């Protein structure tokens, strides 16, 4: 039991993170407004919120629209539901910018924001005469919740499943890479077993990462697969490691198989690193993290997301290592049984 403490830790972390992944609610936000283009003059729109408390906080509810840096106040007409409110305002014929952002204030939800929500047609460029006084509420009691992201909504929970898969794959394949180097410097069957087992386990996590990513892409981008450097890199990586398995199957001589596979494996990890860590950094695409960390942007994480995300990464890595460990022991026994070799 003493040396298996990390297995207990792994189970605890995974139970905690899987529970928190689905239990915690999202912070309030604005999903959309009923129109996307407006004309100068009087406009009446319906605003649709998400996890908001318009009805409860009817007293403190305020809605502003912003063009460039000047604000226009709006009048509330009717609060329909907790997440639905109609409001009206007069658009002047002169605006600093035709694209309009919407702000929504109340005591419970704080200040919500939807950028480029409206486009105003047929205006001339100019300053707004009456500016509206805006109170930004930053001290609202939103509590422990995942950040609301436009277009991603509830699927932000997938962060706890999708990203740790790739982290785990990286770690497991790194074990394989190191084992292959050690095999080449000291050809023992043990190193070969380690390399082979970890590639198999790493591939499982790569497939899981591809599946969770694909589901997420369908939700956020509307397609199961998009042409993006990060996605293609991930697919190619998987193909390379499938190539590793094919290569092993193609060689019958044991020693030769181990040696050739080790050479290919070292090569494959270098390519993997280039494909997933370096190339996406300076290319354009949909996947978050362009021009920086290729996983996610730091501003996407709030403190509650971090409190679940980091344990999730650690938990999945430990689980991956556990699976690898079991497989390795099984392979060692099988090796002993069939070949009666001392390792």
């Amino acid at each position, binding site marked *: 039991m003493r040396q298996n403490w990390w297995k207990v830790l792994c189970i605890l972390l995974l139970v905690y993170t899987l529970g928190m992944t689905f239990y915690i609610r999202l912070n309030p936000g604005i999903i959309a407004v009923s129109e996307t283009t407006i004309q100068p003059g009087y406009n009446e729109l319906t605003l649709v919120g998400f996890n908001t408390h318009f009805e409860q906080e009817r007293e403190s509810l305020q809605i502003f629209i912003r063009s460039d840096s000047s604000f226009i106040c709006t009048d509330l007409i009717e609060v329909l539901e907790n997440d639905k409110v109609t409001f009206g305002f007069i658009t002047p014929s002169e605006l600093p910018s035709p694209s309009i952002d919407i702000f929504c204030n109340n005591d419970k939800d704080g200040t919500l924001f939807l950028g480029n929500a409206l486009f105003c047609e047929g205006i001339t460029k100019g300053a707004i005469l009456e500016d509206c006084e805006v109170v930004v509420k930053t001290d609202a009691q939103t509590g422990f919740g995942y950040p609301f992201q436009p277009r991603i909504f509830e699927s932000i929970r997938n962060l706890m499943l999708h990203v740790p898969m790739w982290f785990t794959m990286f770690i497991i394949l790194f074990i394989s890479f190191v084992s292959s180097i050690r095999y080449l410097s000291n050809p023992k069957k043990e190193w070969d077993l380690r390399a082979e087992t970890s590639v198999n386990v790493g591939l499982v996590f790569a497939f899981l990462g591809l599946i969770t990513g694909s589901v997420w892409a369908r939700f956020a981008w509307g397609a199961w697969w998009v042409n993006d450097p990060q996605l293609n890199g991930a697919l190619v990586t998987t193909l390379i490691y499938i*190539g590793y398995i094919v290569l092993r199957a193609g060689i*019958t001589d044991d020693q030769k198989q181990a040696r050739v596979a080790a050479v290919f494996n070292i090569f494959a990890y270098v390519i993997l690193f280039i494909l997933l860590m370096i190339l996406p950094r300076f*290319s354009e695409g949909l996947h978050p993290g362009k021009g920086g960390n290729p996983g996610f942007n730091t501003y996407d994480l709030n403190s509650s997301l971090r409190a679940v995300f980091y344990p999730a990464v650690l938990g999945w890595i430990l689980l991956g290592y556990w699976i690898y460990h079991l497989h390795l022991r099984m392979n060692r026994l099988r090796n002993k049984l069939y070949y009666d070799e001392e390792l």
Partner: protein
Amino acid sequence: MYLYWNVAPGEFILAKVIYNMGLMLLLGFLAFGAFVLFLGAAPFESNMWVPYMLGITLGSIGFASLLTLVSGIAAQSESGVGLTAVLGIPIVIPLILLLNRYNENILLNVPFNDNLENLGFLGVLTLGILGLSYILFPYLWRD
């Protein structure tokens, strides 16, 4: 067998890479000639032909060094040449992506200084592959 006794593996792989480089350069420039013949000489018109040639040269060298090692690996297995394609196609993809971006930038008349990053990365990648081949090939060669 004869080669095995007489030539150091490092030298052997370098010789093989140089031969393949020559072949790839020849093929690359032939293909470029065919493109100019049938599709017009866009790189010449936009005064970008030096970087373009540089791209072809580095790309050919990169391809040659990559595929030499991969075919060396594939030759060790019983299934032979067919495996080169299976192993090689995913591995050349980063190189293809990089070359694609580099050449696209040239045809879009992006200033050469902005494109230098891609070229540098291409060079580093090629050098890295060459170094890896040089280090790893002796392990394949021992039989």
